Every structure is written in C-alpha cells, then in structure tokens.
C-alpha cells in the first residue's frame, strides 16, 4: 500500500463534504421565490416543515461561518505541507493529454469499451498524476466557487449593518446562487465516480484509510506513482 492522503486531508475532505452538502441543501431551501427556485417550491415547503424560515437562515449562516473558520485554521496550519501542494496538483494541466483523457473517459462511461473497440478507437487512457483530468475539472471550479461563495456570503452578512449599496448586495446574492449551482451540478458526478463507479473501491477506501494499493496507483495515477517510487 502507498500512503496517499494525510489524516488532515481526510478529515478536511469529510468536514468539507458535510458542511458543503448541508449548506447547499439549506441554501436552496432559502430561495423562497418560485421564479428563482430551480428545484421547485415543494423543496422550500419541505424545509419550512422542519424549521421557521428565519431559522433556516440562522443555520445556513452559522454553518457557513464555522466552515470558513475551520478551513482558515487548516489552511494556515498546513499551508506548505498540504494546502499549497493540493492547489498545485489540481492546477497542473497538460492540455493535450487531458483532452484525450476526458474524451476517451467520457466514451468509456457512455458507450463503453466494447463499442469503442468495435469502432476501432483506442481505449487506453493517458497516464495521470495525483489527480486525473476529470478530478481537476471539478476541483478547480469547486475551489473558485467556494471562494466566490465566501466573498458573496460575507457581503450579505454585512449587508444590513455596513453596506448601503443595494446593487452590490443584489449581485452578491445572484452570484452566491451561481457559485453554489455550478458546484452542485458537478457534485453528483464526483460522488458517483468516487463511490459507485466500478473499479473505484480502492480510491473510495483511501478517503478513510489514507492508502491505496500499489497496483491501483500504478494504473490510475501512473505519473504520481513513478515520482513516489523513485
């Protein structure tokens, strides 16, 4: 087995997952306007059966602040050891290789290998680093949108006491929704690929144990494996 994720990274991943999903679900429950609500007003009614509207907001804002605070502590405490390496990994692109990987991976998932071979297409995927091209495609928007959510959320938190610019607050709430929606659209894919998709078992388990089997790493993250083994 090779060590892939530190204990800090594992904790932050699950802390992030719980907070993010709760914030997403409660946030959508706050859109009490049938013209703006993407899921349907039944979703707002469901939340109102659980909590009074203002208490949904209290939950959302409190959790948001806690999430940011814990993240800030983690990033400062693990800045060089984990935060920067993570950011570097997710932003390392090789356009040609990544495009081929994405194209062939999508075909693998949709039409499947059999049909790919029948059509005479190459089925092999270019070697990937610590994260594959698909993971990077989700991670980069997730990080950027999280920053957007924090900035716009902060503006809304201050909108009653500090700010007098209505346009700033209007743009903030609209962009807050946009950032949440963009990541929300990718989240089911992440969850599917990381948990249920065939062959992903070892990767999913590594989010608890921190390690992956050597053969798995050699196959799925060849470039990282080669670097580590050397």
């Amino acid at each position, binding site marked *: 087995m090779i060590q892939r994720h530190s204990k800090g990274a594992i904790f932050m991943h699950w802390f992030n997952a719980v907070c993010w999903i709760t914030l997403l679900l409660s946030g959508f429950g*706050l*859109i*009490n*306007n049938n*013209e*703006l*609500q*993407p*899921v349907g007003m039944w979703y*707002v009614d469901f939340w109102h059966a659980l909590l009074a*509207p*203002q208490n949904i*907001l209290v939950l959302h804002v409190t959790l948001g602040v806690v999430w940011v605070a814990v993240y800030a502590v983690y990033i400062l405490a693990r800045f060089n050891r984990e935060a920067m390496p993570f950011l570097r990994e997710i932003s390392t692109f090789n356009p040609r290789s990544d495009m081929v990987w994405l194209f062939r991976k999508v075909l693998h*998932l*949709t039409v*499947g*290998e*059999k049909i790919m071979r029948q059509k005479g297409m190459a*089925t*092999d*995927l270019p*070697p990937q680093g610590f994260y594959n091209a698909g993971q990077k495609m989700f991670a980069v928007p997730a990080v950027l949108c999280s920053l957007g959510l924090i900035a716009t959320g902060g503006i*809304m938190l201050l*909108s*009653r*006491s500090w*700010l*007098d610019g*209505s*346009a700033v*607050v*209007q*743009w*903030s*709430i*609209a*962009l807050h*929704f*946009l950032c949440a*929606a963009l990541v*929300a*659209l990718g989240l*089911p*894919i992440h969850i*599917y690929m990381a948990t*249920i*998709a*065939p*062959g992903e078992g070892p990767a999913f388990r590594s989010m608890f144990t921190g390690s992956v089997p050597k053969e798995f790493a050699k*196959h799925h993250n*060849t470039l990282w494996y080669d670097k580590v083994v050397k």
Partner: protein
Amino acid sequence: MAKYVMVLETAKCINCRACVVACQMENEVPMGKARNWIKQAPDDSPGLRHFQPGNCMHCDDPMCVSACPTGATYKDAADGIVKVNTELCIGCGSCIAACPYDARYRDPQRGVVDKCNYCPRLRAAGEPPACVSVCPTRVRVFGDADNPADPVHALVKEAGLKQIVAANTNTKPAMFFKGHTVPTDWPQDVTPPLPMRIWKFAMTPVTSWVGATTLLGIGLVAIRQLFDRKVHNAGEKESGKEV
C-alpha cells in the same frame, strides 16, 4: 380569511399631512423617511390644487414579491396585506426597484426594507391604521372587502371606482379611488434589477435543466456500467496495461 383594502376620496384631502406624521409616529419610521405621501396636481382652474394621499397599494399581483430572492416580502393570504419579514431581509433593495409606486424605502438604521403594513399593532387592538383615524376630513376608508358586514365590502363594488396603474404594468393594486383624483400618470413601468433578471431567466432554468440531465445521465451510466463490469475487469487481466 380577510382582504384588507383602502378606498380614498381624495377630493376631501386638505394636505394637512396628519396621516404622514401619524404613520411615522406609530411605526417608528426613521427621520427623513416616510411610508406614505401626498401628491399634488393642478386641478381645473389655475391656482386650484388636488391632493392625493397614497401608500403601498398591497397589490394582488405584487412585483415586489416576485423580485424578492429570500421570500422576506410576501402577500399574506390570511389578510391580503403585503408584508416584510425583516429577519429574512438582506437589504438587497430588489423590491424597492421593482415597485411601480415607489412605496418602499431602506431603513438606514436597520438596513432592511420598510413600507406600509397597515399598522398591525392598531389592527390587533381593533383600530384602523393611524392614517385612517387621524384624518380630519375622512379621506380614507379601510376595511375587509371579503366581510359583508364591513362598509368597505359595499364600497368597493360601487361604480366608477378607479385604480392607479402604470402605463404597461398592472399589479392589481388593492387601493381604490372614489370620485375625481389626479395625478394618475405617476406610477413607473419598472423592471427588476439586472442580477435578478439574469437569475430568473438564465441561471435558474439552466440549473434545473442541466441538473436534471446530469442526474439522468449518471443513472444511465450506472446502469450501463453494471452490465459491462465484466468487460472492464476481463480487459485489464488480459492486456495487463491501462484500458
């Protein structure tokens, strides 16, 4: 269930402004702000004026409610009054921009929106709103249009009652004018602010459609992968290299 409305006979108004002051006192309106107003217009012979009191019209099709992203502002089905839940208001001001009657303002101290809500404290005590009881010439009649025992019930059915609406926007105001009244061309055709329009016409439909398609796509991929599982594992063993 009730439907509170107001009927105004503005020819009686003498611009004493007692209604404005009474409202400010009753509702702790900040200095320099007002929930209601008196409009003036020249009338008939030169030198004559007509005074037209007004406030939030508690519309049946309120644009302010459509514009509010948090649901802080809403029309209460129980009494027909358009209200603001200040605990949900983030002070974005979309509702202010969306009102054809410019009936709302931002409270500079609390940072939330404020407007006429028909004096809840007085109504709870069985009294009409402050502007109604203070008027020396009895311009305003307030009551429940759905209650046959209420004088307003018959009043709203009178022929010749007018509503004041913007040229191209009818929000179905629940305020009626009896007899002659001017001005009538002052409400604005307004549109919600740009970020709200982008949200409504682009962000929400795209999110709904892409979201549904994504979930459907994942479902289909999952089903297909279940069937083809054996192929993947066999392929790996066979070639011993990345497939």
